C-alpha cells in the first residue's frame, strides 16, 4: 500500500469496510448474466479486503454498459465521456495524489475511442488501476464491432464478418510502458479479486483487461468459450518479471488463452512521484491559493 493512501486512511482506519458497505445507491441495470456483475463483485471484494475507505477511492469511467459501474459502487465516482476516463483520471490523480483512483470501462471505450489516452497514460505510468471489461463487442450501442472483436466476427456493423485484426491490449500495454499488466476473467472470481488487489497496491499504471462476456450481443466469446480456453499463468510457470515471456504469452490466443499477471515492474516511479511540484507536499487540491508577495514581485520584475 502506498504511503499517501495510508495517510488519508489514518483518520478513519478503525472503520472496517465490508462488501455491503460498498454497494451503490442503485442496483445495476445490466442484463442478467452479464459478465460485468463479476467485475463489480470482484472490485468490491478487493476494496474491502484491502480495507480502503470508500471516501478515499475515486472510481472513474467512460461510457458503455460497463462504464455504468461507478454508479453501482459506494465510492466517489465520475461517469465521464466515452473514451475519456483515463484523461480525467490522470488529471484527478495529479490533482489529489492521495486518492486511490480506479478506472473502469469497456474495450470500445478504452481501446477504441480512448486509444490515444490509453497509450499515453501507460507511458506516463500514472498511478491508476484500470479495469477494462472486455466483451469484444459494443454492448450499450447494441452489438457493433469493437476493437477487440475477432477477425471474421459477425456483428451489426459487420454483417459479412469483420476483416480487421483485433487489438491485443496485453502486448500493447507492455510495449507502451504499463508497469502492471494482467488479464482476468469473470469466470475466475478469486483470481480476478487478487489481480485487482495487486493492481490497487501497485504504484504505477495497472491494467487488468478482463473477459467480461456480453450475453446479449456476443455469441462467440461466451462464458463457456473462455471457460474452455483460459489457463492461469501461475499454473503455466510464468515469471511476470520476464518481459519477453510476458510478450510471448500475451500473444497466445486460441486453444489456450492465458489469464493472470503477465508483467510487473516495480522499479519505476509513478508520474506523481516524478513531479517536483508535488514534492513532499499534500494534494495540490488542498493547497492554499494565492501568490506570495515576493514571488509576485519577482514575476513582475521579469517584465521590466
Amino acid at each position, binding site marked *: 500500500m502506498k504511503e499517501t493512501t495510508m495517510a488519508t486512511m489514518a483518520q478513519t482506519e478503525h472503520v472496517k469496510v465490508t462488501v455491503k458497505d460498498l454497494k451503490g*445507491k442503485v442496483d445495476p441495470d445490466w442484463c442478467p448474466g452479464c459478465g460485468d456483475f463479476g467485475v463489480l463483485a470482484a472490485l468490491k471484494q478487493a476494496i474491502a479486503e484491502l480495507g480502503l475507505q470508500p*471516501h478515499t477511492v475515486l472510481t472513474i469511467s467512460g461510457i458503455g454498459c460497463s462504464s455504468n459501474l461507478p*454508479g453501482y459502487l459506494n465510492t466517489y465516482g465520475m461517469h465521464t465521456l466515452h473514451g*475519456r476516463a483515463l484523461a480525467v483520471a490522470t488529471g484527478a490523480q*495529479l490533482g489529489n495524489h492521495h486518492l486511490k483512483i480506479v478506472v473502469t470501462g469497456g474495450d470500445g471505450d478504452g481501446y477504441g475511442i480512448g486509444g490515444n489516452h490509453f497509450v499515453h497514460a501507460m507511458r506516463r505510468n500514472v498511478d491508476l488501476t484500470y479495469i477494462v471489461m472486455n466483451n469484444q463487442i459494443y454492448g450499450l450501442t447494441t452489438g457493433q464491432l469493437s476493437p477487440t472483436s475477432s477477425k471474421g466476427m459477425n456483428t451489426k456493423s459487420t454483417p459479412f464478418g469483420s476483416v480487421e485484426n483485433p487489438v491485443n491490449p496485453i502486448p500493447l500495454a507492455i510495449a507502451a510502458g504499463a508497469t502492471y499488466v494482467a488479464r482476468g476473467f469473470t469466470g475466475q472470481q478469486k483470481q480476478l479479486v487478487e489481480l485487482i488487489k495487486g493492481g490497487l497496491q501497485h504504484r504505477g499504471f495497472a491494467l487488468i483487461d478482463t473477459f467480461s462476456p456480453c450475453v446479449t450481443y456476443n455469441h462467440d466469446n461466451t462464458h463457456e468459450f473462455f471457460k474452455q480456453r483460459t489457463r492461469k499463468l501461475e499454473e503455466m510457470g510464468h515469471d511476470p518479471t520476464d518481459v519477453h515471456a510476458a510478450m510471448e504469452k500475451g500473444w497466445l490466443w486460441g486453444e489456450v488463452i492465458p489469464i493472470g499477471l503477465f508483467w510487473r515492474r516495480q522499479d519505476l516511479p509513478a508520474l506523481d512521484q516524478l513531479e517536483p511540484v508535488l514534492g513532499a507536499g499534500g494534494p495540490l487540491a488542498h493547497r492554499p491559493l494565492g501568490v506570495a508577495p515576493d514571488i509576485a514581485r519577482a514575476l513582475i520584475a521579469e517584465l521590466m
Partner: protein
Amino acid sequence: MRRLDLAIGIGGAAGQGIATPGDILARIFVRRGLHVNAYNAYQSIIRGGHIFLTLRTSDQPVLSQGDKIDVLMPLNQDTMNRHLKLMRAGSAVLFNSDTIKPGVVPDGVQLCPFSVKALAPTTRGDLVQNTLALAAVLRLIKVEFEILEEILTLQFRRKGAAAVAENVGVARAGYDYAATHFTALPFSLPDTGKRLAFFEGNQALAMGGAAAGVRFYCAYPMSPSSGVLHWMARHARQLGIMVRQVEDEIGVINMAIGAAHTGCRAMCATSGGGFALMSEALGAAAMMEIPVVCINVQRAGPATGVPTKTEQGDLWQVMGAGQGDYPRIIVAPTNIGDCFKVVPTLFNLVDKFQCPGIILSDLLLSEGRSSIDPAELDFNVPIDRGDVVGLNGDGPPVNGGFKRYLVTESGVSPRALPGTPGYVHVVATDEHDEDGVLISDEFTDPHKRQAIHEKRMRKMDGVLPLLAPPVLHGPADAHVTLVGWGSTEGVIREAMQQLAEAGIVANNLQIRWLVPLHAEAIVSILSRCRAVIIVENNYSGQFARYLRAETGIVAGGHIRKYDGEPFMPHHIVDGVTAILAGSTKRYVPVHEIQV
C-alpha cells in the same frame, strides 16, 4: 518638437534577428516610463519568409500598432521593397548598403545607408547589421549611448568580456556614424522617472491564472496559444502549478476537468481547432458541474487556417460548442492588461456557478505586446471558491445523504471534493437526479429531467448581475457609435481620435462579457445612439448576428476585416467615413502593407 509618437518597423526574413533589436528598443522605452505597443506580423516558417515587427512608443498609452512607420529597419531587400512606399515625410530608412539597394523614396524620407563592411570590418557574424542599425536608430532619437552599452553588456556577459567589447565597439561605430551622417528625428524621448512593465497577452493570461490560484494547467501546443503553456511551464516549480503537455486537446480538457473535480483551479488554452476538439468535454464539465477555464486564442480559420494570423472568427463556435443547452460564461478581454485581470474574475465566477468559463482571446491580443503600469498587476486578488464542503478534507459527515445536485433556487448546489468523509457521491455526464443517480435511460422521468436541467440553466440568471454592464466610451452625443468586442478596443479608440480630428464625433461600446450578454443595458445604450457601426475581425459579422439575435438591434453599418492582419486605425476611419457618406453599409478595408 512633436509630441512623442514614434513607430519603428523592423522587417526581414525569419532567423534574421528581428526579435532582439525589438526587445532592446522596447526595454529602453519602458524603462523611461514610455508606453509601448508591439505587433509582429509573421508566418509559420522557421527560416525565410517575411516578418515585420512594428514597435510603437509614446508618452501616452499606445492603443494599437498605428498607421505609419517613422523609422524603417529593413534587414533585407524584400523588406525595403515592400514597405518603402508607405513611408511618409519626416521618416527615415536605415539599411546596410552592402547588400540592400534603396528604392525610390517618397519626398521627405531620409535614406540612411551604412556599410557593415566599412563600419565593422573585423567583426563576423550575421547580426552585425542589426547592432549597427539599432545603434543608429538610438542616435536618431537621441538616446544616450551608455544605455545601449549597458544593455549589450548585460546581453553578452555570458559570452565573455571579448564578446561584450566587440559588440559595444560595433554599436559605438554605428552610433557615431549616425551622428555625423544622418539627421536626427524630431522626437525627444522623455524619461518619466517611472518604469513600466512590458508583456504579451499570453503572458498576461498565464500570470492572471497564477494570480487566480491555478494549480493545474495543461495544453497541447497550438499557435497562437502556446505562449501561455511556455510561461506556465517556466514558472511551474516557482508557483507550485502542475503543468503538463498532453496528448491532444481532448485529453487536455478532460484532464483539467479531472483535476478541477478534486478541487484544483484548472485552466487550459488552445486555438480554434483545439477548441473544436474540446467541445464535448465542455458540456461534460457543465453537466457534472465542475468549474474549469479554457482560453481560445483565435486565429484565422476555418480548419488549420492561417496559424500565424489573427481573426475573431470563433464566436459562434464557442457559443455553440458542445451539444445541448448548458451554462457557460464567455468573456473577451479587451486589451492585454485586461487579459491579466479577467482570469481571476472568471475563476471566481466559474467556481461560484460550477460551470465552464471560456476566454476568447485572439492572436492580436495574445501575441501582441504592450506596456503596463506594474501597479496594475495586482496578484492579491479576491478568491471565492463558491460553495464547497470540506475543501480541506474535513466536513461534517452526513452519512450518505449528500445530494450533489440538490435543486436550489440559484441553481447552485454545494460541492464536495473526493476524499471528504461523509459525502461520497458519483457525478455523471449522463442526465442524473439530485443525488447523481442516472435518469438517462430506464429511469428517465420527464419531470426530474426538467427540474435538474432548469436547475443547471438557472445559474446563468445569477451570473448576469455579477458582470459589469458595458459602458459607452466617449462623448454621449456622437455622430456614430462604434461597437466592437474583445481585442478591437484599442484600435477603435484610436480611430475615434482620428475621426474627431476629421470632425466626426464617435464613441465606442466595447463588449467584454459575451455570455451572458447584458442585452437590456446594450439596448438602452444603443437605442439612444444616432448611427451604429459594428467593427469586427471576421467575414460574416458573427457579433452583429449575435447582437441582432439577443437585442433585435440591426446595425446601420459594418466594418469587417478577415485578411489575417488586425485593423489599423485608418481602416476604421475610412470605413466610418464611407458608411456615413452612404456609399456602403459593409466596408472591408484593404490591408496595404504586404506581410
